[in-house]
């Protein structure tokens, strides 16, 4: 502080010019070096034939060190600016990289996909809304939309409903900790892994052979012949939805259970003293109090069902009329290389989640940012 107050020592013109030049040079030199280092890391990671372990270590160093360096250099440069400009530019040093990445990976691609959906398979000829007409008239696609509606309705309803029921039940049971952990656990498992678990449950052997799938074995013990579950339409889609419910009920349960802890006991006691039955307490007092949480959970699961992809691919690969929009989108885009139709299907998915985006934004308007 004191040094700054002192008058600068007298300098010759040549010296002033030299330090000025020096500063400018350093200001250019440092970012250039930083950029070169980052770029060299990028090229190494892109093309290197080095062992995986080496590449991963370099990637971690590059990911943390390189990114940190980027911010340090940007901040250092900003500090060289006059104070007014410093405070103007600094926020963009903080948020700029995130904005740029989001723009590159989501915003710009969304626009490009929207534009691309108006072109033919190769992306050269403008075809107007043809891809959308195809999407809503092709029988496969109509089935996919029907299936997605099944996923949306049953998946959301049962995951949320059972999550709520279990959350209420478990809190009154002695087994609460074990039950919560075990029901929540499928959240950690990939949909692909979960699909293998359930393929085995649904496994089918021709009549007369031992049934090794749990479901057919149970049927068999009641004297009912084996059912080829995954090829019977539309039952098969419902059975795939069961896998989602198995995975997501735990999520719903944990969130709703936390909300239940926030329901004031006095309110429930007051209800009981007034003569309400347990069901009335649940229906009239508990549910309305935690309704916002239930809505949040349901929307989260609803989005998941609209984009569902892994379960269908791993269970049936979309055969036997189990296809959904996301699996058809991938097939059109990356198996048949029809960028136009693939893009149109992606846009349809985006439109399907728009109500949720709108809802999220409306929730947000109330908050100060």
């Amino acid at each position, binding site marked *: 502080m004191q040094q700054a107050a002192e008058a600068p020592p007298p300098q010759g013109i040549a010296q002033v010019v030299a330090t000025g030049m020096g500063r400018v040079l350093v200001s250019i030199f440092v970012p250039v070096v930083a950029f070169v280092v980052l770029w060299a890391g990028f090229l190494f990671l*892109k093309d290197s034939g080095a062992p*995986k372990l080496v*590449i*991963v270590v370099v*990637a*971690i160093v590059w*990911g943390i060190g390189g990114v940190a360096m980027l*911010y340090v250099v940007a*901040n250092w440069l900003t500090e060289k600016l006059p104070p007014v400009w410093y405070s103007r530019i600094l*926020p*963009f040093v*903080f*948020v700029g990289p*995130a*904005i740029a*990445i*989001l723009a590159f*990976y*989501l915003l*710009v*691609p969304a626009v*490009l*996909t929207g534009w691309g959906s108006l072109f033919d398979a190769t992306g050269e000829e403008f075809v107007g809304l043809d891809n959308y007409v195809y999407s809503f008239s092709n029988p496969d696609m109509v089935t996919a939309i029907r299936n997605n509606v099944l996923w949306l309705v049953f998946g959301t309803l049962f995951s949320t409903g059972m999550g709520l029921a279990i959350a209420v*039940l478990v809190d009154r*049971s002695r*087994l*609460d900790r*074990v039950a919560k952990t075990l029901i929540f*656990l499928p*959240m*950690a*498992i*990939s949909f*692909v892994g979960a699909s*293998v*678990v*359930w393929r*085995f449950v649904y*496994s089918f*052997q021709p009549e007369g052979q031992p049934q*090794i799938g*749990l479901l057919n074995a149970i049927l068999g013990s009641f004297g009912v012949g084996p059912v080829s579950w995954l090829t019977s339409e539309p039952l098969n889609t419902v059975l795939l939805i069961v896998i989602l419910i*198995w995975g997501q009920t735990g999520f719903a349960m944990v*969130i709703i259970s*936390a909300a239940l802890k926030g329901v004031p006991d006095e309110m429930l006691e007051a209800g009981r003293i007034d003569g309400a039955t347990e069901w009335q307490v649940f229906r009239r007092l508990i549910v309305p109090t935690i309704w916002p949480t239930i809505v*949040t959970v349901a929307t989260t699961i609803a*989005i998941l069902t609209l984009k569902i*992809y892994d379960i269908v*691919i*791993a*269970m049936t*690969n979309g055969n036997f009329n189990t296809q959904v929009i*996301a699996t058809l989108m991938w097939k059109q*885009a990356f198996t048949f290389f029809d960028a136009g139709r693939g893009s149109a299907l*992606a846009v349809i*998915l*985006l439109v399907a989640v728009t109500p949720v985006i709108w809802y*999220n*934004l409306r929730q947000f308007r109330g908050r100060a*940012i």
Partner: protein
Amino acid sequence: MSKIRWSRVAINLTVLALIVIWTVPTLGLFITSFREKQAIFNSGWWTAFTDPQGAFTLDNYEKVLFGGDGLANAFLNTLAVTIPAVVIPILIAAFAAYGFAWLKFPGRRILFITMVALLVVPLQIALIPVLKAYLAIDLNGTFLAVWLAHAGFGLALATYLLYNYISQLPKDLIESAALDGASHFTTFRKLILPLSMPALASFAIFQFLWVWNDLLVASTFLGSDKEVQVMTQALVSMTGSRGQDWQLLTAGAFVSMIVPVLVFLGLQRYFVKGLLAGSVKG
């Protein structure tokens, strides 16, 4: 009094039934993965203990890991994909969260709202253009391509989660740091980052589970080359080509589950905190 006791018994029994329903499918997978192929097809896994047709074996694991399916290689690939894909976006998101929470600049509101909107955008919307960009610079099929894609797709959620945390830190703390002469950069590095560790941890767990369990991004940007494919891809190709080889499928599925399940059980507390901080991902 006895009515209450009966309802308590009923509740405990129902919960017990739920536990059984939720656990039995996985238990079947686990037991089957240790049975011999012949035994698997001759009798249900539930008879494995009462009517042992064959002894338990570790052969299935050896075959699936080091045989033609090469799951050991896929396991390493999954690790190689996951760790950097978790690490890279964290700092970027933390800086952005601090900027949105504590710095004032024109366009802040609209930029933040755009980010909230991007939270639930299905990433299918981005696949084709990003793939085209990758092909143009010959990036496709590399781990780098997948790391950056996961970083990009996870960034909105990361920033949002961290914003929720960082914006709730006491205002006095940041102001007193400024009075002491600390720049925003120093405040962020010395004060905010260490204080935000719980939030960083919960995002890291999210992103870890998300990337480890992902199939869509890997299939799109890694392609089907066996040398680089991750475990979800390997499992899906097994369900296609050898859907009846239960001894291999069950062992393979179990290998793919073990790491996320351990992470999940070990760090469940942070995971739940992250969930409760409001997280929906597109």
